[in-house]
């Protein structure tokens, strides 16, 4: 059997079948036993494995240490956010959405608010938009920090994981002072935000900013400056441009593959049209590029936070609206650039007090689909690192 013929084989619940020529972006699909009839080791990675970032279950087929095929199995955290949203009022839905992407709740909240505002035609005060942007950037930084830490942990380095905690705790203090919670903010509502920023928080953020870029350089030196880390990252987990687009990847993963696309710049929302920032991109789409792109994004984050603090307008933080928000029948879609990519919410309303259908377009869900492609061909150690580099959050994948 030639390799081309062979590539078509795969395992399905019904048995083995041959689907014909492979479509664009696919190199191989899961298969059973190779032509030499060597028995492969099928390994269940997770759930309960520290480095699979939650409860992701990946079936990998190993030949020695080499990954022959991989298949992700989801659903260990499927808790019906989309279904439950149908029984919640419009201002109650963010409670669920916070828990979907638990590392960057403010992005999901904002996406929800934008969607509802679009359909209901609610105007948002300028200050509310700026506050949303400020908090989203803080949250993005916190989320990327966790990513750097866990990525280091995946690569075997313990220090960055604990070093990032000092920034993160400071950011969480700021977010707690503004929103009242460390993680589940419930701060952004359709029409604006829940409360104004308290007095003195500006100074607190600036104090953190004075440390942040030095600490980021330190973390970057610890990981990116390390020869071993570079050896591990360069050329592993390559996701080329075609594959990335074919699998619907967005965010840092897509930009690392060389597609210059950022919703903040290309489909502007909130305060972003008025802000200056760059969009870092990579070329090869390997783990190193994803690392560089994310660190570059963090530097842009700091730049944005400075601009947002300096230019924060005066005025109302929320438009007047009734508690029982009614949204006219229809559909709308709005998306924000979350730390993981395009986080969109598709809302179907029938004019009632609760949404008729809410669909969360979760970026990590689409980014994860590529594992079947990206893991094959590498070693098991690469597989762990590649999975880590995708920055998945199971809460929003399983919903």
């Amino acid at each position, binding site marked *: 059997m030639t390799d081309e013929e062979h590539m078509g084989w795969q395992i399905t619940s019904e048995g083995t079948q041959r689907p014909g020529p492979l479509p664009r972006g696919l190199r191989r699909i899961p298969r059973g036993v190779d032509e030499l009839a060597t028995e492969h080791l099928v390994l269940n990675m997770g759930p309960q494995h520290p480095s699979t970032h939650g409860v992701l279950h990946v079936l990998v087929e190993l030949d020695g240490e080499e990954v022959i095929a991989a298949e992700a199995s989801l659903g260990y955290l499927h808790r019906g956010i989309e279904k439950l949203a149908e029984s919640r009022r419009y201002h109650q839905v963010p409670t669920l959405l916070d828990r979907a992407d638990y590392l960057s709740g403010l992005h999901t909240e904002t996406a929800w608010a934008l969607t509802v505002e679009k359909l209901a035609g609610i105007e948002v005060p300028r200050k509310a938009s700026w506050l949303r942007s400020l908090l989203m950037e803080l949250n993005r930084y916190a989320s990327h920090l966790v990513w750097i830490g866990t990525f280091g942990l995946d690569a075997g380095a*313990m220090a960055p994981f604990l070093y990032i905690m000092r920034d993160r705790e400071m950011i969480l203090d700021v977010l707690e002072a503004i929103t009242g919670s460390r993680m589940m903010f419930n701060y952004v509502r359709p029409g604006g935000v829940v409360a104004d920023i308290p007095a003195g928080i500006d100074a607190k953020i600036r104090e953190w900013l004075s440390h942040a870029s030095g600490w980021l350089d330190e973390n970057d030196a610890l990981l990116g400056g390390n020869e071993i880390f570079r050896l591990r990252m360069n050329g592993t987990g390559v996701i080329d441009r075609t594959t990335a687009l074919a699998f619907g990847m967005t965010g840092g993963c897509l930009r690392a593959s060389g597609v210059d696309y950022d919703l903040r710049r290309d489909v502007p929302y909130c305060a972003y049209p008025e802000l200056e920032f760059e969009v870092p991109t990579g070329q090869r789409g390997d783990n190193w590029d994803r690392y560089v792109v994310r660190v570059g994004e963090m530097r842009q984050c700091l730049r944005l936070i400075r601009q947002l603090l300096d230019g924060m307008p005066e005025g109302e933080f929320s438009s007047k609206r009734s508690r029982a928000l009614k949204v006219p029948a229809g559909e709308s879609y709005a998306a924000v650039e979350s730390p993981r990519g395009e986080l969109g919410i598709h809302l179907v309303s029938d004019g009632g007090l609760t949404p008729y259908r809410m669909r969360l377009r979760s970026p990590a869900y689409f980014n994860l689909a590529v594992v079947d492609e990206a893991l094959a061909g590498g070693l098991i150690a690469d597989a762990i690192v590649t999975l880590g580099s995708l920055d998945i959050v199971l809460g929003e994948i399983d919903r």
Partner: protein
Amino acid sequence: MSTALGVLARFGAMIGLLLVNGVVLIYMLRKVLGRLHLRIGPNRVGPWGILQTINDVIKLLTKEDLRPDSADAWLFNIAPFLIFVPSFMAYIPLVFGPTLAVTSLDTGLLLAFALTSLVPLGVLMAGWSSNSKWSLLGGMRAAGLQIAYEVPLLLSALGPVMMAGSLDPVKIVAAQSGVWLGFIPRWFVLPQLIAFVVYAISSQAETQQTPFDMSEAESELITGFANEYGGMRFSFMYLAEFSNMFVVSAIGTMLFFGGWQLPWLATPAWLAPLVFMAKTYTGIFVMMWARGSLPRFRVDQMLSFCWKVLIPVSLAWVVLWACIQRLWPVVSVAVSR
């Protein structure tokens, strides 16, 4: 009769040292890692948390003794001891002071290396008998890597051995007394710098510390070969890991840093063990430092680094040093004329 008693007493002292060492080292690791990672480390149990490890040991010893149903019972039970015993026996040739050693052997160094090289066997056995895929991968990695890294470890020890002209640790340490040119301590680390670097790297790999902790790569294989072990058996494996660290660091001290001797000064007999321990613990601290800060190599990178870099370098160094040592008298005579 008295010799038998003496041997027994020495063995007892050795076991005591081993246990105390293990306990202290685990405590030290947690404190050092804590401090490296901006934390405090254990501080609640006893003053400064020094009783923490004792608590851990008591707890582990009184845990339920679990064995997976599908495990190979005999091998599973014996593997922890096969890991533990060699690392314990490797204490025999260590020289703690001018007259302080369990026993003096002409080929003590050889014995120590031979014993530490038995450890991969136990690791492989543990990985295989657990009948778990993760353990098996960990065991296989350990077997492949530890055997590979033993070669540069041994080769790098040859330089000091040639300088001292003996495999007896007592003689190697004795050869490092005094000074060169009036002020440089006669420690072999200076002329043997390349050998020392090779020794440091391969001993880090031999003891399975980050960046070479392939066989128990936390993020890849959970705890690797020790995956299915809990309670007492796990504590033996854990203790063996730290005992190994102590042994390689102690051998490094003897080979390169003058053993129990203070630089420039004559060392009183009562101070010698303390000096030796201080040097060894400094070495262990450096190992822990690396463990706390470096990322991990990939398994193939680590193997190619060993076979393509470390072994050629150490081989070349052995040959070069042999030439230097052979030619030096001729050259020095020629120069003095």
